[in-house]
């Protein structure tokens, strides 16, 4: 019974435009926040709603959130100005297991590139051999690559149209890369259809694969059931958001999710 009653106050230090749809908020926290790579926070603006976000950088009292404007709340948050406040609760869920033996391949699609960065940095800091693939539709849609360059990260790019890096989707790039190099571990965040393809390939190749799932998160506490992954009955907010691919392949993963009313709907991305 660990009360998460209290929100941490955070002030926007700057707001960086990544693409036309994605912004990164650099936040200054009122106190330090301990959060493992892959865990998420609930980010609240009174009146504007509250949504789950996996931070894209955590350093002492600085925290980055990379947010795609997909609807009301995310658009409001992504448009905040320096000095404005947001309120955070968490961390919630299970992050990535970064202590499995072997080399790591990280695959981030869209904002997933940002959300995977703390995992990347943690691995590299510990001297683990790591390759980071980031992808998007085109050069303009690439997220977080400037920040990754600033951080001196070694990463490779894929775009669907070839406007930068490898020409093709991330699953295609993944096949390409893994035909040349062997990685014992794959971590991926991105559109669910992309993740399911990668997870399937990993299972075929006997590679451990961890994916970070998105469902409608309301409570974040495991009580409301809105984030359930059927038919496994797993709650993304407490049993996830990170799952081992082989554990959820064959479920609704990549195929169905539930909307806000609990209706079963197809996964479109």
């Amino acid at each position, binding site marked *: *019974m*660990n*009360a*998460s*009653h*209290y*929100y*941490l*106050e955070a002030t926007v230090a700057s707001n960086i435009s990544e693409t036309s749809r994605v912004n990164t908020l650099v936040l200054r926290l*009122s106190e330090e926040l301990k959060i493992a790579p892959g865990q998420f926070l*609930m980010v*609240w603006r*009174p*009146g504007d*709603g*509250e*949504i789950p976000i996996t931070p894209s950088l955590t350093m002492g009292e600085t925290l980055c959130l990379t947010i795609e404007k997909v609807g009301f*709340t995310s658009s409001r948050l992504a448009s905040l100005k320096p000095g404005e*406040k947001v*309120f955070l609760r968490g961390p919630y869920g299970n992050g990535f297991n970064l202590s499995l033996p072997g080399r790591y391949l990280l695959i981030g699609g869209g904002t997933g590139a940002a959300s995977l960065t703390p995992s990347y940095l943690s691995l590299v800091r510990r001297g683990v051999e790591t390759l980071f693939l980031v992808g998007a539709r085109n050069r303009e849609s690439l997220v977080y690559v400037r920040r990754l360059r600033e951080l001196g990260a070694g990463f490779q790019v894929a775009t669907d149209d070839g406007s930068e890096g490898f020409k093709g989707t991330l699953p295609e790039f993944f096949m390409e890369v893994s035909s040349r190099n062997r990685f014992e571990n794959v971590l991926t965040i991105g559109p669910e259809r992309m993740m399911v393809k990668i997870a399937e390939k990993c299972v075929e190749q006997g590679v451990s694969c961890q994916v970070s799932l998105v469902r409608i998160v*309301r*409570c*974040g*506490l*495991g*009580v*409301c*059931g*809105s984030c*359930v992954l*059927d*038919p*496994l*009955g797993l*709650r993304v907010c*407490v049993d996830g958001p990170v799952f081992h691919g082989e554990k959820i392949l064959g479920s609704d993963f990549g195929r169905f999710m*539930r*909307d*806000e*009313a*609990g*209706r*079963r709907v197809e996964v479109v991305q």
Partner: protein
Amino acid sequence: MHPGMEVEVAGLVLRSPLMVASGVLGSSPSLIRIIATNPDVGAVVTKTVTYLPRTGYENPTVVDLGYGFLNAMGLPNPGYSEYRFELGSVKKGLEIPLIVSIGPSDEDEAEEMVEELDSVADGFEVNLSCPHVENLGVEVGSDASKASGIVKAVRGSTGKPVLAKISPNVTDFVANARNAVEAGADAITAINTVRGMAIDVNAMRPVLSNVYGGLSGKAIHPVAVRIVFELYEKIKAPIVGCGGVYDWRDAVELILAGATAVQIGSAIAHSQTGLKVFNEIGEGVRRYLALKGFSSVKQIIGLAHSER
């Protein structure tokens, strides 16, 4: 499985007196199937379904207080007809009764919903007590003639057991329970959540987007015990106790107060072990019965009332 644990509520034979409370975990069909394999679960109450689909309120919808939760979900649900379809897919092979919770806003809705849902339900729980949704819940429950009309409509549309779930947020909950029983409810579920709210001191604003919400968990256990105890003396129908059951003592307390069965909600999320909390509570109840020399949980129902 555990013969001493069997109870009967309003004609439903339950292998365990422990049920999953409505709305907690949302009772997605796949979860219902998983939960039903737990021998310490006697029945599942679904989340409350309404006539039309509802997306519920904006986040934040839940506050964790440690000793309980505040929630104002706003009864999100796909609407009764889609839900009926989903329940149909799990009903077959389910070893325990499926009690469908419904939140109709008038008699017509009640009738239509129950007629449709009757084929997938082993019983109904009429939610007269959601403290944070207008035109449903407490509003309905405290308007005696409306509540009565709805329960009558449900009663008239099914031959299956009907439970009425009452609110603690009224002066005279006994009158409300009596009213529901007179309208045809076979049993009373007590209690739904207690009205409350939380304000964040940094944001200086109510946390729940709906401002007010319902308090559940440990915090309301003494309130539940008290209401069950009083109902046991004042109404004839069996009582299903609900509110803040976190361990076997809490469950036994409600049974001694007069509950025939006990629902568990918040504890599932607050316990470290999730759904295993049912097994911990079940084992505790069995140990208790053995220690005190009882062969069946039925023998202790209402025992706190007798002068011994």
